[in-house]
């Protein structure tokens, strides 16, 4: 917006959510014409930081300087007026709108009567897309686009007008290698146009291709800020995880013999193609995949939440072709969702009720729920997992994310379970709770429970899994045994 723009600086930013200190004294400077990479595990505070930049959250403390002048970002409008444009990780588009409309969502080209100049809108859009080398029908509804095309629309929207700072949150997570190359060209172009870029990614190789400097966050704290020349993959990983990848748990390599579940050629209409694998008793089977690889879809298909179009599942010698969540729960399968707020907790219920929901028959006598027994058992689990709460009668919404997650895990553990599917069990969970949850998973497997563990946290994946299956594009791309898996190999398999 301003050709003389020099830099955007965040100073000593602090942001607290109930129970979690999301950002603690974080500073960051984005310089015009340069790419500042921001790294960190899930939950390190990157998303919170960009939401503050976008005006979606308000900071608790700290200052934001635009060209050395202090500015307020109280709402999205303030942010947009400064030329801060964000490409969100979750697709933030209006599905019923066309590509062109979505790109111009902020400000439609209008005349003085507020009438949209469609010709100009679509022409400009076409030109923009052509310029940055992507080929999309600008009049197509976004709902009809693939995920990667939608991501391109997001990127195009952020850069098409008046940007001074472009924030990209995992922009390549669902792009093809070809598209990623083009995106990097776009970024080079932005640099030339004196625009500052904050680039968030998990993919270390990307950073060395495009970034000028890199900042690492961990658990809401600023860990390091280095020039790209002064760093290496090793150092960055160390900064992110805080230590070299190491064994946190006592989980020796061993072989399993009793197959508990066979997944035979499962496909779904939307995503999954021909997936087969076995799950052994007492095994932790890790799944890795980048966004859009189909992990969550697989979990939901196995669990009977989404219909499968093909294939079957054998559990305990029983072959299932048509099944739903009830079938799976009856067969001793449990599922903990990645979307705790949307699909996990029941906000109108207390801890006890949330915990006992799938297992009420255990507490039943003559159609009556024995609330004392229910309280007793839920208190046992509250104690066992050190859930921080005054009582089991507290509304679940009043707990922190980590404690909520412990309750959701307990939801399944109070019943007789054979298999548990965990989808990002440590996402949005503070570090203390995280370690406890991981230890718990390990203990459960030792007791003979089979665990399907889907996580993007490489460290957890490597230290806990007996086998690791890597997914890409709705298919299984590679399978590793515990002793042969390395970070690099897994990454490589996931970007095929």
């Amino acid at each position: 917006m301003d050709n003389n723009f020099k830099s955007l600086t965040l100073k000593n930013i602090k942001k607290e959510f109930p129970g979690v200190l999301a950002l603690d004294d974080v500073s960051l400077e984005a310089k015009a014409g340069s790419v500042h990479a921001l790294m960190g595990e899930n939950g390190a505070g990157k998303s919170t930081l960009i939401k503050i930049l976008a005006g979606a959250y308000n900071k608790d403390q700290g200052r934001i300087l635009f060209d050395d002048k202090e500015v307020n970002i109280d709402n999205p409008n303030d942010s947009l007026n400064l030329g801060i444009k964000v490409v969100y990780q979750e697709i933030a588009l209006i599905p019923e709108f066309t590509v062109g409309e979505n790109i111009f969502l902020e400000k439609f080209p209008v005349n003085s009567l507020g009438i949209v100049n469609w010709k100009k809108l679509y022409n400009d859009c076409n030109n923009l897309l052509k310029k940055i080398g992507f080929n999309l029908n600008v009049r197509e509804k976004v709902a009809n686009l693939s995920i990667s095309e939608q991501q391109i629309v997001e990127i195009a929207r952020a850069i098409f007008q008046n940007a001074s700072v472009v924030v990209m949150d995992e922009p390549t997570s669902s792009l093809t290698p070809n598209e990623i190359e083009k995106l990097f060209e776009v970024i080079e172009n932005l640099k030339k146009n004196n625009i500052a870029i904050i680039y968030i990614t998990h993919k270390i190789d990307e950073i060395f291709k495009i970034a000028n400097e890199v900042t690492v966050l961990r658990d809401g704290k600023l860990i390091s800020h280095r020039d790209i020349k002064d760093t290496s993959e090793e150092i960055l990983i160390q900064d992110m995880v805080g230590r070299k990848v190491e064994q946190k748990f006592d989980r020796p390599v061993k072989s399993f013999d009793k197959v508990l579940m066979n997944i035979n050629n499962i496909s779904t209409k939307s995503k999954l193609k021909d997936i087969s694998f076995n799950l052994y008793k007492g095994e932790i089977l890790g799944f890795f995949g980048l966004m859009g690889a189909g992990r969550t879809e697989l979990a939901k298909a196995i669990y009977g939440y989404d219909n499968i179009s093909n294939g079957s599942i054998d559990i305990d010698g029983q072959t299932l072709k048509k099944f739903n969540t009830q079938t799976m729960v009856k067969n001793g399968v449990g599922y903990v969702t990645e979307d705790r707020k949307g699909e996990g907790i029941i906000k109108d219920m207390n801890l006890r009720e949330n915990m006992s929901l799938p297992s009420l028959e255990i507490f039943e006598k003559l159609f009556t729920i024995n609330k004392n027994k229910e309280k007793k058992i839920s208190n046992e689990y509250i104690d066992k997992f050190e859930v921080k709460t005054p009582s089991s009668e507290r509304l679940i919404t009043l707990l922190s994310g980590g404690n909520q997650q412990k309750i959701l895990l307990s939801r399944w553990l109070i019943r007789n379970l054979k298999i548990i599917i965990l989808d990002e069990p440590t996402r949005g969970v503070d570090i203390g709770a995280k370690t406890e949850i991981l230890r718990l998973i390990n203990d459960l497997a030792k007791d003979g429970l089979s665990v399907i563990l889907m996580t993007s946290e490489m460290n957890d994946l490597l230290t806990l899994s007996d086998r690791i299956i890597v997914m890409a594009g709705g298919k299984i791309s590679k399978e590793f045994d515990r002793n042969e898996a390395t970070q690099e190999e897994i990454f490589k398999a996931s970007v095929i």
Partner: protein
Amino acid sequence: MSKFFQKNETILFLILLLLLVFLSFYNPQFYSIQNINSILRSSSTVMIVAFGMTILLTSGEVDLSVGALLSFVTVIVMDVINISGSLFLGFFSVFIFCFLIGLINGLVRTVLNVNSLIGTLAMMLILQGSVYIYSMAAIYNTHLIPAFTFIGQGFVYNVPMPVIIMLVILPIFVFLLNYTRYGRYFTAIGSNPFSSNLSGINNNRYKLIGFIITSLLVGIAGIILASLMDTGQQGSAKGFELIVIAAVLLGGTSFKGGSGTILGTILGILILKVIDNGIILMSIPQEFQLVVPGVILILAVYFDTLRKEKNG
């Protein structure tokens, strides 16, 4: 103590108490047995249906066809008993009919996936029309079976029969919502349908049951109303659905599902009915029977929203 005041029921109870004190100052007749019986009797049909509506709203659904069904039931029960001379057959056909209507409402919601606001609105139109296709004329009591008259008009130890019927049904629903897993399921389904499905609960089955229960309760209320009017009257119970829904919402059940208590519903109905009664006792223009509940509804839900925001 502060927890006690945070409860919606407490606030409703205080409102009710204020009303009762105010009215008793104004008119000493208010506390006569007769007047209390009159309030309770006219509350009981609303309450019986509201028990079902509480379940439905808790599970995130609504049934607008209850009023139309209620007047249809009065016609059916009177007609069948007139023809057959058998109370059993009369009640039986009512419950079969109500079961079918509830089933259709539920299937339209769960199979056709039509928003229940629209589906039951359409059912309301269908019932309002077809009751006249069933019979243009009101059906009068020609069977003269005393037991039938007793249902709506009788007393047991000075307590009106409809109140007794309501009191028999009440504990079933208190039990159902608070002490059985089904109550939990309805709350879970309304509060977070994804989560409840992922917990192995068949959302659609319980929604279907909710619609059927509500319709069956309308059947009971319809039999009482028919006895009270001594007539099967098409077009009776006008606006009944709105009163039931308003009372349940006033009682703290959320329109978005998830939270609802029978106690709240009962208090909601009593408040509305005491206001109605007070307006007649005080000889205030009866038009206020429309205005006052409207204001109270908005205020009650507003306070509820405020309180929920405070709780995060």
